[in-house]
């Protein structure tokens, strides 16, 4: 033969081998790649946040310059500013460390006290007894070449004139109200607290009238007020005292403040040193002299009690010394705390300490950027330092995903899934427990139906049925496996669910009637089968009698429903259910799921059981029958135990199918993430949750990654299940390998 041809053939063969091996490996790569991809998308949830020092420089002025009372930084971390004690605001270009602009606030009165509600908004108290609310805003502009310039603007939003309070205030908090009104709370000498409210009302002529009110808040003269917090709407005032009291006042009626709650925060009566309202104004962050940061909100004292009191909800970081200041983030539920020069950033919901650090020289002033991505600090040595924070997923932790969390406005800690709501200050609730529970619940009910049906059906088809029946019944069941799940889901939700809703009692009657009818039939059959001709039916023709039996049970249940309903349930079964069994009956309930998912799973169990029974050698069967066992005894006591690994494999594979099935549960359950095993309501499963939520999840956001986490959990579930099934199948194969 031509050597060239041979050579070429060998070459082709060599390369073909390479390519084909590569193809085999590709499958392996595919599975591993999938796992890696899922893990990669999930991992950032659990990475610890980090900070980076961007720049540091000393403030440019000498010794005799006024002290800084406030700092601020824009969200791009480019422009910073500081307000000094004589009321000058100075803007700095942080990258070049130069002052770019300065302006006098309120014609240069000396500032005696500064309070901040959030970044870039300051309540300033002046030396002449007046006060003002100042806001610094930054606006980014883009020119044609997409170059960014940031413009800053300083605005005095509200001003409380001197003499509004009965004494010179030590500290004033101002909140703007609608129509130019405002609420101002002042701490006066002698431990007095005064509220000054200005309400602007527009009458029907279109002119506005201004009413101002001044009221005293009762305080214990011996118990020094150490911190104040006023919410954005100006109707809730929180006080913290030297003796550890936490007080909440309702300022809804400006003339008559009402005490909502007063309690000693900690049993040891430690002094409270700092207060701040967490973003959303539901929760109050409290810092105490022992360095503990905690958050509180109004919740029932004990579960079930109607009375709400300020309750300790989350314990955040603890420092060694007293908390000097607390600043909330305006992005999420994070709180920044400062104690003895150490700064920590904690997220309230997840109770995660995101960042903790102390600068070489203790920090005395700091400012949080609006986006929560940076911190500008001023230390004792008068150096300004800018840090960038990277904490993309602060709201998640193992406790949030798998544990009970006490969410805002909930009465007790609970497992909750609620990923979004209409407002920005919403607390996302990412508990995967209700979803995992939903997946398991759906699977459980599906298996309750599918396992007996599939196994018994396969036993009949494999052992007792005629060849002819086998040749069409097996493919028929196999073909039902191909019915797209979207069709089953649609039928279950829009066809089966209303029917079942109408015939609910009939369904339960059927469960009783079918077995009793069958037993009754068997009693008669025992007599009838003495007839030789009738007995021939037991030669694989049982179905001719079983089908009428089944149908008559269905008809009988339907016929009996109105009667039974009238006799036992006062004419309305659902009313009875509502009164005695469950309060939340759902048309798309677990019975529907049981049928629909069960129908999907049956073919798997059926086929695997059938295969397993076929793989048991005929000699075993022959031996059993020869020893005088009946056909059922042979099947049940000889064949089934031998085939059991295959059965288990089928059941487990079916379970894997049911856990991961998406369309059926998406359509035929109500998709409410509740934890309730009841037969009469629905669920939300991990898989349906992914389908529901992923279109609305911003890419690389927390929700997006949590959904990948749930996909990873599903992957893990099925991996486990498949491996177990494979083990069972392996043992079956090994057992009968020699036959």
């Amino acid at each position: 033969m031509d050597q060239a041809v041979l050579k070429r053939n060998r070459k082709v063969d060599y390369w073909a081998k390479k390519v084909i091996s590569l193809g085999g490996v590709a499958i392996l790569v595919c599975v591993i790649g999938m796992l890696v991809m899922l893990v990669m998308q999930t991992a950032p949830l659990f990475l610890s946040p980090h900070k980076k020092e961007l720049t540091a420089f000393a403030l440019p002025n000498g010794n005799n310059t006024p002290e800084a009372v406030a700092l601020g930084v824009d969200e791009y971390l480019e422009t910073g500013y500081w307000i000094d004690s004589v009321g000058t605001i100075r803007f700095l270009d942080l990258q070049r460390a130069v002052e770019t602009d300065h302006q006098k606030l309120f014609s240069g009165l000396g500032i005696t006290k500064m309070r901040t509600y959030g970044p870039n908004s300051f309540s300033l108290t002046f030396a002449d007894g007046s006060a003002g609310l100042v806001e610094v805003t930054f606006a980014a502009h883009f020119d044609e070449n997409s170059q960014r310039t940031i413009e800053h603007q300083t605005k005095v939003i509200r001003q409380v004139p001197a003499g509004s309070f009965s004494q010179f205030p030590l500290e004033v908090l101002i909140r703007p109200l609608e129509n130019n009104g405002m609420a101002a709370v002042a701490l006066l000498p002698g431990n007095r607290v005064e509220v000054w409210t200005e309400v602007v009302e527009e009458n029907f002529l279109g002119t506005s009238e201004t009413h101002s009110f001044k009221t005293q808040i009762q305080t214990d003269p011996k118990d020094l007020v150490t911190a104040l917090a006023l919410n954005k709407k100006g109707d809730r005032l929180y006080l913290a005292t030297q003796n550890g009291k936490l007080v909440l006042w309702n300022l809804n009626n400006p003339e008559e403040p009402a005490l909502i709650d007063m309690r000693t925060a900690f049993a040891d009566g430690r002094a409270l040193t700092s207060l701040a309202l967490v973003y959303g104004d539901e929760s109050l962050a409290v810092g105490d002299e022992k360095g503990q940061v905690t958050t509180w909100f109004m919740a029932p004292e004990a579960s079930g009690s109607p009375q709400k009191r300020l309750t300790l909800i989350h314990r955040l970081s603890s420092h060694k010394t007293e908390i000097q200041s607390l600043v909330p983030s305006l992005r999420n539920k994070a709180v920044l705390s400062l104690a003895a020069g150490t700064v920590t950033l904690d997220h309230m919901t997840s109770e995660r300490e995101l960042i903790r650090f102390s600068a070489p020289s203790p920090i005395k002033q700091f400012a949080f950027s609006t986006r929560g991505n940076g911190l500008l600090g001023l230390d004792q040595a008068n150096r300004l330092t800018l840090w960038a924070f990277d904490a993309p997923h602060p709201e998640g932790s193992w406790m949030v995903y798998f544990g009970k969390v006490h969410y805002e406005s909930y009465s007790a800690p609970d497992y909750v899934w609620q990923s979004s709501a209409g407002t920005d200050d919403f607390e996302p609730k990412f508990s995967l427990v209700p979803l995992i529970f939903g997946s398991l619940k759906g699977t459980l009910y599906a298996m309750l139906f599918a396992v007996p049906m599939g196994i018994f059906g396969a036993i009949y088809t494999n052992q007792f049925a005629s060849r002819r029946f086998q040749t069409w019944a097996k493919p028929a069941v196999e073909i039902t496996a191909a019915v797209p799940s979207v069709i089953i889901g649609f039928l279950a939700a829009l066809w089966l669910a209303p029917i079942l809703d109408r015939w609910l009692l009939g369904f339960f009657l059927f469960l009783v009637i079918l077995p009793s009818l069958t037993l009754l039939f068997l009693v008669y059959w025992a007599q009838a089968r003495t007839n030789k001709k009738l007995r021939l039916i037991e030669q694989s023709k049982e179905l001719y009698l079983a089908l009428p039996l089944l149908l008559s049970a269905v008809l009988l249940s339907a016929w009996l429903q109105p009667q039974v309903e009238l006799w036992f349930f006062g004419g309305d079964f659902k009313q009875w259910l509502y009164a005695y069994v469950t309060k939340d009956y759902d048309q798309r309930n677990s019975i529907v799921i049981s049928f629909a998912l069960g129908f999907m799973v049956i073919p798997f169990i059926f086929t695997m059981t059938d295969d397993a029974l076929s793989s048991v050698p005929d000699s075993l069967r022959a031996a059993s029958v020869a020893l005088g066992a009946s056909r059922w005894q042979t099947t049940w006591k000889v064949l089934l135990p031998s085939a059991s690994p295959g059965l288990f494999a089928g059941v487990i594979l079916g379970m894997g199918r049911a856990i991961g099935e998406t369309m059926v549960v998406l359509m035929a359950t109500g998709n409410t993430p509740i934890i309730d095993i009841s037969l009469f309501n629905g669920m939300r499963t991990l898989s349906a949750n992914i389908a529901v939520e992923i279109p609305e999840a911003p890419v690389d956001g927390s929700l997006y990654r949590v959904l990948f986490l749930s996909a990873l959990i599903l992957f893990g579930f099925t991996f486990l299940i498949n491996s177990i099934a494979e083990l069972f199948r392996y043992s079956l194969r090994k057992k009968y390998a020699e036959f």
Partner: protein
Amino acid sequence: MPSSESEKAFVRGEAKKFWREGEYNVWFSTLSIGGILLMALTLLVVVTINGLGAFWPSKLALIKLKEGTTYLGEIEQTSRQPNSKEQRIQVKIGNRDLYSLDFKWINLDEVESITYPEEVIALEREEYGNFYGFLKEVHSPDLASGASGLEAIWGLGDQAKTNLSKLSAELRAQAEEMESIRLRRLDLAYKNPQSPRLAGLDKTLAEMGVVFETQVSAQEQAAVESQAHYALFADAGGREKEIPLVKIHRFYYPNQMSLPAKLGHYAVRIYELFFTEPRESNTEGGLFPAIVGTVILVFTMSFVSFPLGVVAAVYMREYARKGVMVQAVRVAVNNLAGIPSIVWGIFGLAFFIYFVGGGIDAFFFPERLPTPTFGTGGVLWASSTLGLLTVPVVIVATEEALGSVPSEIRHGSLALGATQFQTLMRVVLPMSSPRIMTGFILAMSRAAGEVAPLMITGVVKLAPSLPIDLHAPFFHLERKFMHLGFHIYDVGFQSPNVEAAKPMVFVTTLLLLGVVLLMTSFSIFLRNRMKKRFTGRTF
């Protein structure tokens, strides 16, 4: 009774034997398989009856109530009120624009009479669903004097409709051309902002914009003119309604129709189902884009799934030596088969769309960013995802097929001096090809019915354009697409009027179920015939 004692003992013995032998369990297992088959049959029957019946023109009943009101509509079903003996009927009364309800429940004991007047007319409209009522008069500037009846001016309306659709097609073509020039300009400007050709393109665009504006105004003009042909109808209660002919899709007199006429009507509806676009947010009209989308999806998926599956199976059966590697691949295949489809979907989203697609965009279409080209869901990514999802089906079928080829044949080929690859290509694969084909068909039918991963990777409710058309490069795999399965979910669950949309959902269901079941049964039939030829252990 001489031996009652012994007879009793005999009966007792029989009873014991009965429980011991467990014959009753045989009956329970019979009931199980009966139940399974009955359920499958019910599913088939429900889908078939509802699906086939959806387009049948049923008679319109004029229902007069004792209190005086009258309703006109199709009687959908009769049922009993819960907890009472009263019968009630559900009537599809249509006329959504007048009543804002499509269906009404009427208690039979309130009904005075039900008649079927000959002259009632049913309109299928372009919006607001069906109209049932009576024709009063027709208006048209071009109406021949003395002519009356809807038939007389139907031709005029038809003309106006063709005219309008022609204008719209022109508009669309113009817009598409402008878009392609705009993209070219974008590309040019990105590569070389100083290119002298930019000005030329800008000029062309501006000129085309002027043409576009005139076309728009011509279309508006035609739309206004078309309103001149209209007919006046009255509903059962005598409320009058003017409906322009262009808004009427079809009219018929259901109570006058003979059986052949009904069959003809049915045939036209079926034709429309397969070859026209959907109307009224998918609840009426055809399925053409969804059918095309599904077919393209399945075929594109084949390009991923078939080669990968066959090669992997060949590797495991023919090439791999027993060892850790082949064991690992086997475990991988088993796990691939068990991974839930939604997990595939989310994987496709992260890997294909954001990673691969985003990469393609950054490299090849940077000028269009931030508008994504491949970095968003589309046919290509959906079918790649489905392709990986169906690989195990192909692998299992191919492995079985290869296993069924006797090894003597391989040895014979090798002994004659053929290389392993030649043996594979010339002997083994041709012999096993029929069974491999069954695997392909199974994979395609699985892919056709899978919806969950598509929802994440690019299926849409209404795609503006097909993924295949007459503009180069003909296949636009980056486009979003419609799909029969998603159509079922979307129309059945997301449409504003689920009850009115049900017939359409059942038709779609019947179509999808038919296609999937036919493909599956064909492959199972083939496989079973093949099994007889080469018997091999499947376990």
